[in-house]
């Protein structure tokens, strides 16, 4: 594992202060994997066996509605966590696709390695609390945004916080994430520029 990987992992797991000297077992657990553009990392009906940290690339988590439409739940990108967390945590088949929208490099650990972190390092309980709280608040905010904001307001809000990594993916995925048609998204983007 390179120093660059150490730095990505240490940043991802903030507010913990992770360094090789005190957390060597943690840094040694991770395995690097590559996914091609449009390759599936997880599929509905399969169990997601890994917890990921993204080195590079953009991944999209979505489900397929009965009429075939894609419903985008979210994205992961450089430095963020990735995976289908409910499938990973409960070891149950996923309801979602996790797709590499661009060529992707990820670091991963399996479920028993992930669980062992909480046994080896008591401070991971604190990390778990912080991350789950962030996740919960993030999901509630998104739900409120979808219920209360117009498509134009959702578009504006998204632009104000859109990370630069998402600029490299096809617009239709961003449109589906904002619960609007790709045509509406394209129109709004054109009027903005």
């Amino acid at each position, binding site marked *: 594992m390179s120093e660059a990987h150490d730095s990505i992992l240490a940043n991802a797991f903030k507010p913990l202060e992770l360094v090789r000297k005190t957390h060597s077992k943690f840094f040694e657990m991770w395995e690097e994997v590559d996914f091609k553009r*449009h390759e*599936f990392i997880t*599929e*509905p*009906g*399969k169990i997601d066996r890994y917890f990921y940290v993204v080195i590079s690339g953009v991944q999209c988590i979505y489900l*397929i509605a009965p009429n*075939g439409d*894609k419903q985008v739940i979210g994205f992961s990108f450089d430095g963020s966590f990735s995976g289908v967390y409910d499938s990973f945590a409960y070891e149950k*088949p996923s309801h979602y*696709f996790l797709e590499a929208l661009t060529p992707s490099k990820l670091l991963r650990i399996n479920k028993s390695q992930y669980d062992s972190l909480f046994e080896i390092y008591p401070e991971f309980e604190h990390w778990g609390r912080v991350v789950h709280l962030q996740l919960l608040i993030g999901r509630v905010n998104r739900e409120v945004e979808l219920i209360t904001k117009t498509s134009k307001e959702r578009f504006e809000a998204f632009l104000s916080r859109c990370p630069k990594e998402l600029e490299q993916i*096809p617009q*239709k995925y961003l449109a589906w994430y904002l619960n609007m048609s790709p045509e509406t998204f394209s129109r709004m983007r054109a009027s903005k520029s």
Partner: protein
Amino acid sequence: MARVKIYAEQQIQRINHLINELEEIRTNGNLLRERPNEKAWSSIEVIRHMSIGHQAYQKNVSNALSQLKEASPAEFIVAKGVPSFLIKRFPPQEEGKIKFKMKTTKMFKPVYSDEEIGKMDLNPIIDELKNGLFELKSWVEDYRTKEAASKRFDSALGPIVRFNVAEACEFILCHNERHFQQIRNNLKTKS
């Protein structure tokens, strides 16, 4: 008549569902040997029939895939008129009732005597279908990033019906889903 829209991701989801269900079907053991009535197929014969149906497309689909150009995934592919008509005939009605009997030509029939069915090893036949389902999924994953609609080939029904890869995969999948319903019905009457 409205044409069928084919979504590659939905096909992958449906194939995974069948792969998982096949493992549940395997646990029924000797029940798979039993015919619901004298003239009907046992579940293991239905499983073998699905493999024969799949194998009839292996050569043409592989040839077509090797000739397709790379492309970004399309949101969906619209099936042509005749493939749409054929695909639409398959889905079972609500509550698992199968709409009408379809005639099976001789080349697609699994020919087993009652004696053979009684003593044959079931697992290789189930594994054969499982491998076929994995291959079907690999075809979908492959055509998804190619210009799937650009190349047509004869279906297993002959040159009267021609498919592109997406249509062929949908046809095979719908055919399998219909026969999985038949197995469910078989097992319900026997349990």
